[in-house]
């Protein structure tokens, strides 16, 4: 029965014959290290995978990778390969390496190793077949480790960028002392709602704001979930002593709020941002006075 245990060479029942063949393959790859490594580097250069690497880096990296792979074949353990792959992926993504470059390099090495086996055992098909049975699972495992490390690293970068975009997309602006404007644009999911709320609450504290004008004109879809998020934002702001004026509420959205049981009279709502700002001024105690010069100018236009 075939036993597949993590970290072991897959697919082969262990017996004396297999072990000696593994040793033979390892010895072969170690003996042919220089020619095979150089062949690999040449092929990669030809395909353009080494753009951006100095000759010293190429020498060093190719040697490390070559030896690590042979090590996996010898020991059946992949921890070293895993660690190296993660490090390499981090560097690769930082450098802007393409997937083709990252994976392509290793695919080339796999072919170089494979061809060398063909050459060695070409007179003995049975032996070649046994050698490939041992070699191929190892090569495939290493490749999947590298591919996954690369994907993980890319996803990490995407997440970081998404986070940054979220932060930027809902700025809290101070209109006057004690007055904040929060224009919300775009879809709101639970995570974004939380981010908006946390950002607003911190701004209330930092600016000692007593009024927030929250404009939701730019929120495309306000279903009951989104409405609840907005309501919670308003409630949280209130707990910190800030009144919230909601502007940009369409008739539809008002209907949604009523449907989910919101007492609209408990929400201070106004139709547009301008009215909201005027109301905020009133609450805080500001009065906007138009100077005579401006009035004269306005009269002319």
């Amino acid at each position: 029965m075939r036993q597949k245990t993590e970290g072991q060479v897959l697919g082969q029942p262990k017996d004396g014959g297999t072990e000696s063949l593994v040793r033979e393959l390892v010895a072969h790859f170690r003996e042919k290290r220089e020619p095979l490594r150089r062949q690999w580097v040449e092929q990669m250069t030809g395909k353009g995978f080494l753009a951006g690497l100095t000759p010293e880096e190429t020498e060093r990296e190719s040697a490390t990778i070559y030896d690590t792979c042979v090590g996996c074949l010898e020991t059946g353990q992949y921890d070293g390969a895993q660690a190296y792959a993660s490090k390499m992926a981090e560097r690769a993504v930082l450098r802007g390496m393409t997937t083709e470059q990252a994976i392509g390099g290793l695919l080339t090495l796999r072919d170089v190793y494979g061809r060398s086996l063909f050459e060695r055992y070409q007179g003995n098909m049975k032996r070649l077949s046994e050698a490939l049975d041992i070699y191929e699972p190892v090569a495939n495992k290493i490749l999947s480790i590298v591919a996954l490390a690369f994907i993980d690293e890319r996803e990490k970068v995407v997440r970081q960028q998404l986070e940054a975009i979220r932060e930027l997309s809902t700025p809290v602006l101070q209109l006057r002392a004690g007055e904040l404007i929060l224009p919300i644009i775009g879809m709101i999911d639970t995570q974004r709602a939380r981010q908006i709320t946390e950002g607003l609450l911190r701004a209330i504290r930092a600016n000692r704001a007593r009024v927030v004008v929250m404009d939701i004109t730019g929120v495309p879809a306000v279903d009951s979930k989104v409405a609840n998020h907005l309501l919670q934002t308003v409630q949280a702001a209130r707990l910190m002593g800030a009144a919230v004026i909601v502007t940009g509420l369409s008739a539809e959205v008002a209907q949604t709020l009523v449907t989910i049981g919101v007492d609209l009279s408990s929400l201070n709502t106004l139709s547009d941002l301008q009215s909201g700002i005027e109301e905020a001024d009133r609450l805080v105690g500001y009065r906007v006075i138009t100077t005579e010069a401006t009035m004269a100018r306005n009269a002319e236009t």
Partner: protein
Amino acid sequence: MGVSRRCAAEQRGAATVAGEIRVALDSEADIVTARQQGRALAAELGFSSGDLTLIATAISEVARNIVAYAKRGEIVLSHANQGSRRGIVVVARDEGPGIPDIAQAMQDGYSTSHGLGFGLPGAKRLMDEFDIISQVGKGTTIVMKKWARRHG
């Protein structure tokens, strides 16, 4: 867990066993201990400051439930790994009267009107995972988990 951490935890009135922190709930004063221990552990696990408050509040609610209805019980804090993310596990256990109708108790309106406060449904909202097993006459066990959001 480091020695200094264990000492500090024990000083605060909790017992520590290989990665677990147990807080006995005998009186309402223990509620504060339970949530402070929870906050401390969550901080070690790298939760954001907002999440620390959510976790501490959830612990406060379930601990309060135990003290109010079962009179005594315990909170067991530990951590868990799921792939590459880490999380906090809070087990709230008592041998109290048990909850006859869990579904009902988990409804917001019910718990508020019966003076249970926001307890269980509230705690569930604050955590990522929430499981409750209860048997009338035997007791109640609640297991809650929250996972630290990966910061890239």
